[in-house]
């Protein structure tokens, strides 16, 4: 059985003045699948995501989604003025009509429950991303849209964050659309990669995309050694944090992927 399509995009074009930012893009987001958009700066990733969110109108083309589709959105960066006194708890309260138990549960599922009473101004980059993710989860989303979720997070934190996203997908059975700048870091936690440079250069399984000539043309040849090193590095990190359950599946993924390249 094939999963349900949550969003179907057909021949999407977005133009700002004479500048064509999204060029004839068609893609489908399926339930329970993680789709990663990857591409150089100015490739139209954020623009495409904003169109999916309904934040901007396409110049032409169709975005088909259920009008009742619940979307959880995590913006690239949240700048809250320092004059705004806000704890994590109060921040989550502005999101949705959720109970205190819901808020705690959402924070627990991103392993950030200790932050509840903290000021949002005191959070590190990684902590803020988790809190944003928790806010998105409060809406019980069918589609989770993440704009560079790992921005401002160190390498180890990034791997952990991507694994967290994969575990959330498993738990909530939602579809995930995310923007990333590093294919290798998200490989383990993604089903579909779309390489965007205004138009879709190539798409498919992460392994497939990483060897595609048009991907290599955009991002250069990723040294196979380098790649294997990266993967090893994550594996060790995760094994040390052995208590984190959902990591296991993705760790295996990493392993088989590593093996393929060795």
């Amino acid at each position, binding site marked *: 059985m094939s999963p349900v399509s949550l969003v179907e995009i057909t021949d999407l074009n977005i133009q700002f003045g004479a500048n064509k930012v999204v060029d004839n893009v068609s893609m489908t987001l399926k339930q329970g699948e993680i789709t990663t958009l990857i591409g150089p700066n100015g490739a139209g990733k954020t623009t495409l995501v904003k169109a999916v969110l309904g934040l901007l109108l396409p110049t032409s083309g169709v975005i088909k989604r259920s009008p009742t589709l619940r979307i959880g959105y995590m913006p690239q960066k949240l700048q*809250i*003025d320092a*004059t705004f*006194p806000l*704890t994590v708890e109060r921040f989550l309260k*502005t999101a949705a009509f959720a109970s205190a138990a819901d808020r705690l549960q959402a924070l627990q599922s991103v392993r950030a429950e200790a932050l509840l009473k903290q*000021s949002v101004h005191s959070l590190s980059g990684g902590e803020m991303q988790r809190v944003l993710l928790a*806010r998105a989860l409060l809406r019980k989303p069918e589609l989770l849209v993440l704009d560079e979720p790992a921005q401002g997070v160190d390498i180890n934190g990034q791997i952990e964050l991507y694994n967290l996203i994969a575990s959330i997908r498993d738990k909530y059975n939602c579809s995930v659309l995310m923007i990333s700048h590093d294919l290798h870091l998200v490989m383990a936690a993604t089903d579909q990669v779309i390489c965007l440079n205004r138009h879709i250069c190539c798409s498919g399984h992460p392994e497939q995309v990483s060897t595609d000539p048009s991907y290599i043309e955009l991002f250069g040849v990723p040294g196979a050694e380098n790649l294997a090193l990266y993967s090893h590095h994550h594996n060790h990190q995760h094994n040390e944090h052995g208590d984190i359950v959902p990591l296991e599946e993705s760790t295996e993924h990493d392993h088989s992927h590593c093996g393929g390249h060795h």
Partner: protein
Amino acid sequence: MADFLLFALLGGVGVALIAGPLGSFVVWRRMAYFGDTLAHSALLGIAVGVLFDINFNLAVVSCCVILALILVSLQRQKLVATDTLLGIMAHSSLSLGLVAVALLDDVRVDLMEYLFGDLLAITPDDLLWIYGGGSIVMLLIWRLWNQLLAITINEELAQVEGVPVTRIRLALMLLIGVVIAIAMKVVGILLITSLLIIPAASARRLASSPEQMAVIASLLGVIAVCLGLYASWHFDTPAGPSVVVAALAQFLLLYSLPLRRTV
């Protein structure tokens, strides 16, 4: 107590109470210049009021609201940067107001009264405007509070979460416009923004939630009004500027105290 003193006190307190929550939004959303621009246009409202012989309060409120609407639509067209746009509107509407007032040679308009306020000249009719308009503003802020907070945190996030962002933002601008029109009588066109932002900025030192900040800003504003009026009575200083000086003293005091910020 003399009637005019009581009226002045009631008027000042009323304005300070509404200025607290709205001033907090002005601080959070960095709209100080926007407030100034609306305030400057109020003089144009006075001129229009004289010209067409309509109630001054009504004329000023309408003028501020219309200018807020024009600003929102011009801002959307992105012809020039927002601060440039605000600068153009602020000073040209003030100048237009001054020119218009000068051309109305059969009527004497006391400019000083409008530029710096005349708290001691507040009439029962003004009080009706302050408390009537103020209650409507307060009611709306209370109803829209969570949505106003949501768009202040992040407008795109709020929109995805189903908040009608454009409408809420417009509502906030109109509310600020109304409050500025109401507050003009107390501290005058040139000083209104200070009554919005100084108590709110001081309140930040003591507040650990947005609600606390709004309430504390109102209370600090009320205290500043009382102190200012007292000083004005005792030392025969102009009332509006005395209120602002009192608010400044609070600000300096709170920021020199070694308070630990927790949130």
